[in-house]
């Protein structure tokens, strides 16, 4: 099964689990699977239109899905998906 790495600041919404396994075949399905299981996580990852929030990046391995097929990017059973929050300040 593909593995989603949960970023440390959001683990309180996954009962402190650092990762989540999914059988989904694409990124959209994987995120849906994750947010259905851990519903409190949804508002931190998805906007009102169920789209991934602008300050969240999703990586498949070490590639940004925005340079692949975005949410339609296929996910193989051995894939690692990372949820990456924007880190910035001044």
């Amino acid at each position, binding site marked *: 099964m593909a593995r989603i*790495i949960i*970023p*440390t*600041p959001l*683990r*309180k919404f996954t009962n402190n689990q*650092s990762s989540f396994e999914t059988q989904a075949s694409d990124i959209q399905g994987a995120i849906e699977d994750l947010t259905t299981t851990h519903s409190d996580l949804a508002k931190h990852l998805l906007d009102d239109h169920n789209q991934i929030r602008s*300050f969240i*990046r999703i*990586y498949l391995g*070490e590639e*940004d899905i925005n340079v692949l097929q975005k949410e339609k990017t296929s996910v193989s059973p051995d894939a690692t998906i*990372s949820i*990456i*929050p*924007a*880190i*910035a*300040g*001044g």
Partner: protein
Amino acid sequence: MNSTIILTPNALDTVYEQAIEIYPDECCGFLYGKEQCGRVIEQAIPVTNSKTGDKRRRFEISPLDYLRAEQYAEENNIQLLGIYHSHPNHPAIASIHDLEKALPYFSYVIVSVFETQIADIMSWRLRDEKRIFEKEKVLLPQYARN
């Protein structure tokens, strides 16, 4: 929440050295350690300030550096507890830009640096569900410069 954060000599040296080396730009990096009664930062790992344009007032960490930081924590069985950055020629008080971008859970350690001098160090953490920072009590090694 009256949290405490302890920086070990190794971690503190890394933060201070990078703040001075990168001056007048803002430096940044990740903080790793353990959460016990308070937070103990055992290791600081610098990363590149990937902000495009003027880096003297802003910092940004690339998604790939963040991804690798989480990997590092997992591989070394250590917790990713926060982010540090410097405020060149400004106090170590969290700015509105820091607050806007802050994530829950993380400690945001800020170092005030004036050329070759570290002036101050503070740490801030978001109060859960509220967009306000709360100051953490920073405990430093005895030899530290402040």
